[in-house]
């Protein structure tokens, strides 16, 4: 599917997309959070960008773990430990490979989700990033079960599911994260973390 060179390329693109969506994500967080999700993510991925040169020759597992550690130590807030844990767990799951398959990708996302659930004491239907991550994972698994193994196609079903997941967060009352303080007032607004995850997945898909 992709080798370690490609991973670096994709990470660059993710950093660019996050930076481009800094205000958009911050704006979303302004409505139901504290207005910093874009700022936090951009701060983290700017640091990831800076470390990228030193990672070029590393295996995929090592690259992802390093990205995770950088996010943990620069993002702060809720998204730092969550995305950080997600990348670290994905790295561990994929391991010391320089080339990965769609199955590796699925295993990585699966581990990332477990990491977020563990760290965030959270699950789906709580109006968090999990409400984009889990539907995306399930959709991709279904696509593969249906016999499809074209990575672009599998990924695009994931992106579509993540996007509907984001839409679905508008119908949810937040019970985790800062938006939960709003109770019913969180209804009608999409979750910033679910949105940033979808942007990341879409960027991966577009770069394959």
């Amino acid at each position: 599917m992709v080798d370690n060179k490609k991973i670096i390329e994709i990470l660059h693109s993710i950093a660019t997309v996050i930076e481009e969506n800094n205000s958009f994500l911050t704006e979303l967080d302004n409505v139901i959070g504290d207005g910093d999700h874009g700022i936090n993510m951009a701060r983290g991925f700017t640091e990831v960008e800076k470390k990228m040169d030193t990672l070029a020759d590393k295996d995929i597992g090592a690259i992802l773990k390093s990205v995770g550690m950088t996010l943990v130590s620069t993002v702060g807030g809720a998204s730092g430990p969550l995305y950080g844990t997600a990348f670290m767990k994905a790295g561990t799951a994929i391991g010391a490979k320089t080339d990965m398959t769609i199955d590796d990708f699925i295993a990585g996302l699966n581990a990332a989700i477990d990491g977020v659930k563990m760290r965030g004491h959270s699950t789906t239907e709580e109006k968090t990033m999990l409400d984009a991550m889990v539907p995306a994972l399930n959709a991709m698994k279904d696509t593969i079960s249906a016999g499809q193994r074209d990575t672009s196609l599998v990924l695009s079903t994931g992106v579509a599911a993540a996007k509907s997941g984001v839409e679905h967060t508008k119908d949810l009352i937040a019970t985790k994260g800062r938006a939960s303080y709003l109770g019913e007032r969180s209804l009608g607004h999409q979750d910033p973390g679910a949105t940033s995850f979808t942007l990341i997945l879409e960027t991966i898909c577009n770069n394959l």
Partner: protein
Amino acid sequence: MKKLINSIDNVENEMIQGLVKAYPSYLKKLDCGNVVVRANKKEGKVALISGGGSGHEPAHAGYVGEGMLDAAVAGAVFTSPTPDQILEGIKAIATDAGVLMVVKNYTGDVMNFEMAGEMAEEEGISVKQVIVNDDVAVQDSLYTVGRRGVAGTVLVHKIAGAMAETGACLDDVQAVAQKVIDNVRTMGAAIAPCTVPASGKPGFDLSEDEMEVGIGIHGEPGTHREKIRPADEVTDLLLDKILSDIDYTDSEVAVMINGAGATPLMELFIINNHVADVLKEKGIKVYETFVGEYMTSIEMQGFSISILKLDDQLKKLLSAKADTPAFKVL
């Protein structure tokens, strides 16, 4: 955005440096980031660490000193610090008696401190934590993340800090911190928002005649929005909620009237005038009152009221000596 700053990227850093330069006999900054510790490490007692996003000055670094904190970790504005930063703070202050982390109940803070605590434990430091959740504006239920930690945190610092100074063991310091948490309730309101420098825009909008009741210290929405009312009525709104959350009947209390950052002291005293009257009328005895800026929200216009129910132990610890840049008891 009209602010007296230099560059958006350096706000936290220059602020912490300016603080440490103002109080060098109290404070020292670690090289690894915005971690402030006592100028002279105190051995032989439980060490207290707290922290959170910047923007709540003087919290938390202003409370580092004798009788309160041993370290404070400052994240980016309104963003929890990271585990590695917190870990550096823990390592710098750790004694054989152990370390207590005083964490405000926000997902980000809880997770980052938790990770730091795990890392410190791996290095052989014994670490415990308490989670402050005094904001009655949000519901506490098993199915939510619970109440937010707000200005009551400062009273946790004061009392747990005094307890640690007596040489009490980690379990006892944790227990008294938890007792404060169990007995303090806070609620706030705002009439104008603040602006996170990196965002450049106010965190929320209020029209000229509106206020947000139950505002969070990061500008998070509260229970509802309504037309602004006279100070006494706003105070009643908040007091009602606070006083119906714990039974304060016949008890002695500490009161904190906390300014959000841009509210003049004049208004805070006017608010206290009514708080004092209401408590007196209800037969609740005020043991000590604190009026000022203790847990701010940059330049938000608003205030919060905290009421801590006291017993003899808490009274004694509240009145114990404290010598920090922002909180002094002689």
